[in-house]
């Protein structure tokens, strides 16, 4: 909280000092952001974005965790697919927009597809690395009771890796949000916060206050989602948090 205030103060000073004659001070941005809350049009934009975000994220999680488990626990599959996976990973979604648009159209499905494409990786890799960090003694002890690979996975590896997978999911929420809005900015149709931001940008003069107010809402949404997830983690992984304690 203190940090947030300090940050806002910084932006305010920067804006007022005219470090940037194009950046409005924080107070103005926040005022505008508050006003947008009552703007029906903006709320519709926000709704569309959240929908694309949520669908994309959900699908990404459903795809990435099993894939991560597969890659993490069957080295052969990991080796056989690595060339392809590592080839695909660095391809930027901007380059894919026209291709995906051509294949599946440009509506919600375009945004959702690109969100999935980007959000899969953090979950996938945190799952893979999380599984690798499981204490071998813990795994062995269940194996020794005759539990098969899948059972060991379910009862030991996944719970043990769960906090880290969750961190991957938290990463993915941010990535998904960024991708949703960015795709909208570059190629949005109709509605979406990104479309809102885009149009604010092409006004003459550019409506920086609108752009930044939109950004504030995106950021706040990210903060709220993160807070919810952290709270969920604390409950779900109480064993983890009480044991390791830690600053947070």
């Amino acid at each position, binding site marked *: 909280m203190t940090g947030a205030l300090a940050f806002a103060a910084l932006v305010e000073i920067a804006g007022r000092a005219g470090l940037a004659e194009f950046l409005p001070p924080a107070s103005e941005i926040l005022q505008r952001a508050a006003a947008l809350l009552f703007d029906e049009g903006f709320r519709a934009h926000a709704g569309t974005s959240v929908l694309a975000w949520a669908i994309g994220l959900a699908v990404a999680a459903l795809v990435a965790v099993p894939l991560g488990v597969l890659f993490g626990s069957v080295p052969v599959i990991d080796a056989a697919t690595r060339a392809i996976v590592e080839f695909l990973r660095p391809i930027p979604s901007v380059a894919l927009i026209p291709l995906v648009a051509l294949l599946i159209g440009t509506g919600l499905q375009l945004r959702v597809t690109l969100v999935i494409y980007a959000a899969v990786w953090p979950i996938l890799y945190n799952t893979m690395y999380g599984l690798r960090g499981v204490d071998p003694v813990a795994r062995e002890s269940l194996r020794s009771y005759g539990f098969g690979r899948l059972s060991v996975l379910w009862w030991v590896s996944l719970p043990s890796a769960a906090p880290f997978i969750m961190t991957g999911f938290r990463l993915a929420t941010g990535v998904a949000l960024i991708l949703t809005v960015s795709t909208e900015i570059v190629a949005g149709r109709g509605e979406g916060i990104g479309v809102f931001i885009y149009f604010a940008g*092409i006004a003459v003069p*550019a409506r920086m206050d609108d752009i930044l107010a939109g950004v504030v809402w995106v950021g706040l949404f990210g903060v709220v989602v993160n807070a919810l997830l952290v709270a969920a983690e604390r409950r779900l992984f109480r064993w983890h948090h009480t044991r390791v304690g830690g600053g947070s």
Partner: protein
Amino acid sequence: GDSTTTSAPTSTAAANGGLEKTEIKVVGLPAIDTAALYVAIDQKLFEKEGLKVTPQIVQSSPEAIPMLLNGEIDAMFGNYVSMFQAHDQGALKLRILAEGSRAAPDSLSVMALPDSPIRSAKDLEGKTINVNVLHNFQELALTQVLKANNVDPKKIKYVQVTFQNIMPAWQKGQIDAAYLGEPMVTAATSQMGARKILDPASGPAAEFPISGYVSTQEWYEKNPNTAAAFQRALHAAAKMMESNRELVVDVLPNFTQIEKATAATVTFPYFSSSDNPVRLQRVADWMVEAGWLGKDIDVASLMSPTTSG
């Protein structure tokens, strides 16, 4: 040119029988150049032709090409340079349905800030100028005008700067001169005291065609009557707009971020009320000259005769 009747009864008859498709989706851009589409809707000109046109706005015209190809839309508003390139590269088989806009004097402008040392076209040599998209119509026209002004076009450095970043980049000295279109020309003149250095729509590039309404050859062959009706309505709109600025001012807020007050003061491009392959051919030829096309394009073969009065 070759006129047919545009009276309401005939059109209605066409709507009943002749039109292959009565509901079409058309993509426009959030720029003044698209105004004819909205005026035609506003003035019920499409309706008169028996067409129901649903407009849609995209950020830039290349994005709409996939939509055209996968049938999401029927036609789109795009700049010729992009469209010719797409055609040349085989990305789509272009069909120009109707011309859209041409550069009017003062609707485009290369400008310098009041305290800039740039005073004449010659001063632009070695300087950095922004364009919206590299290798597009802005460069194409300016090259011709520079040549006519004895400036070596090769000595200009172009950088791509998105719309909202032109002003900050300019004021922070990241670009030496700004290549602006409306409404930024008006805004820069009145608010920043910017000086016009060169009008890119002058001399050899006067009335330079910028963009038009296009579709694919395939779509056109399937829907020739719809295409003709569409063209007629747009031409009719352009005609009305020639004599009545207010029509344009009224529709601008519908699809651009230009408010009414600003709209009243800006310079509009020319809206084409007929199609003319000759002037369009000039664009294609310049592109060949710039090395942007692999082969010549015979523009006339992509166009239909003007059927409007």
